[in-house]
């Protein structure tokens, strides 16, 4: 018996994860810092995001670079938002809105895409993970560190809000 415990037990996974983490940690930090506004909190968010990614690395294996980048950005935002919200609750601030993160400048004819960008972070994430990355709600629950039922509810709520936003923008039947 070997006392041998690995977070990533495949040497190839270890190597590719290490390379990926070192390539994108700065970008993840930038994204997280836009939300939490402090270096230490941003590092914590990146660290937690990378742990979550390592635990679910099988869902990323073999994905193209743009998808990996997008996934890591989403993970960093998710954990930064959690840290932000935890601190907000602790300090019992009132009147603060949800963290907005990066402000996106865009030109697009796709009104629904505009609505997605205006969604609160947690809803935008679930929409992107489900409808862009193609993850199941069970996988999204693992990625976001929530229960599957919460993931399902979050997805339902996101679609409901999205629909309401979109209908305000433009009359359209889904």
């Amino acid at each position: 018996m070997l006392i041998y415990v690995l977070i990533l037990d495949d040497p190839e996974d270890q190597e590719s994860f290490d390379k990926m983490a070192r390539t994108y940690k700065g970008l993840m930090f930038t994204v997280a810092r836009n939300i939490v506004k402090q270096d230490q909190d941003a590092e914590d968010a990146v660290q937690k995001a990378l742990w979550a990614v390592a635990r679910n690395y099988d869902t990323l294996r073999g994905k193209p670079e743009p998808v990996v980048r997008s996934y890591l950005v989403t993970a960093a935002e998710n954990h930064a938002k959690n840290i932000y919200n935890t601190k907000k609750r602790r300090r019992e601030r009132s009147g603060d809105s949800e963290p907005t993160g990066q402000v996106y400048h865009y030109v697009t004819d796709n009104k629904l895409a505009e609505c997605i960008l205006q969604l609160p972070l947690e809803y935008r994430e679930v929409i992107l993970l489900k409808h862009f990355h193609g993850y199941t709600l069970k996988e999204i629950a693992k990625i976001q560190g929530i229960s599957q039922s919460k993931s399902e509810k979050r997805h339902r709520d996101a679609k409901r809000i999205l629909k309401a936003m979109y209908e305000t923008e433009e009359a359209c039947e889904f």
Partner: protein
Amino acid sequence: MNFEDQLREAAAEANRIIMSNLPEPSECVHEFSPKFERQLARMTRRAETPVRYCLQRAACAALLLGLILGAGVVVSTDAGARFRGWVKEQYETWTRYIFEGDSSKAPVERKDYQLSWLPEGYEESTVREELAGRMIVYKNEDDLPIRFHYTTNLENRDLLVDSENLAETMIQVCGRDAQLYEPIDDRTAPTIVWMSEDDNVLFIISGYIEAEGLVKMAESVEQI
């Protein structure tokens, strides 16, 4: 186009916009703290403990042979100097402890042990039962493990320690000699190894905590 198709198209467009608004990774320069770099290194490390505990001497010898690939001449043999009842063989990058104690003292009944003190944030995660002992893994919220392993059947067993980049110190646990292994490169978990008072039980604790915490855990071992 139905809503699901619209959503898929819109999500791809939203993702494109998000990515185009972000800087290139190479432009994102931040000097991460040493703590962060340590945590990152831990995610990709190969072994979280330098100790490999072999069930059978023959298997241990074969493993050692494979590990040293002919380069591991025995540098020294240190009979009984580290743990009572054990002979230490020092290879270039490995240390092998061979149990030569009095196996007739082996207890008829198996005894079980537990840690009565854990660092903050750690909880029992998994327990692996063995014929002559048990491995209990505790984890914190970052999934960092602490491993507590003990075995009572020591006859015909060896202990292998990957001693490359390890600092080895003799310390005391409840008045007993114990071996503390601390990594120089921070890529392996510090580990403490010691024997029970009657020399019949071998204890091993590994975890990414300071040596002081390891010793405190070792001193908190109690029979169930």
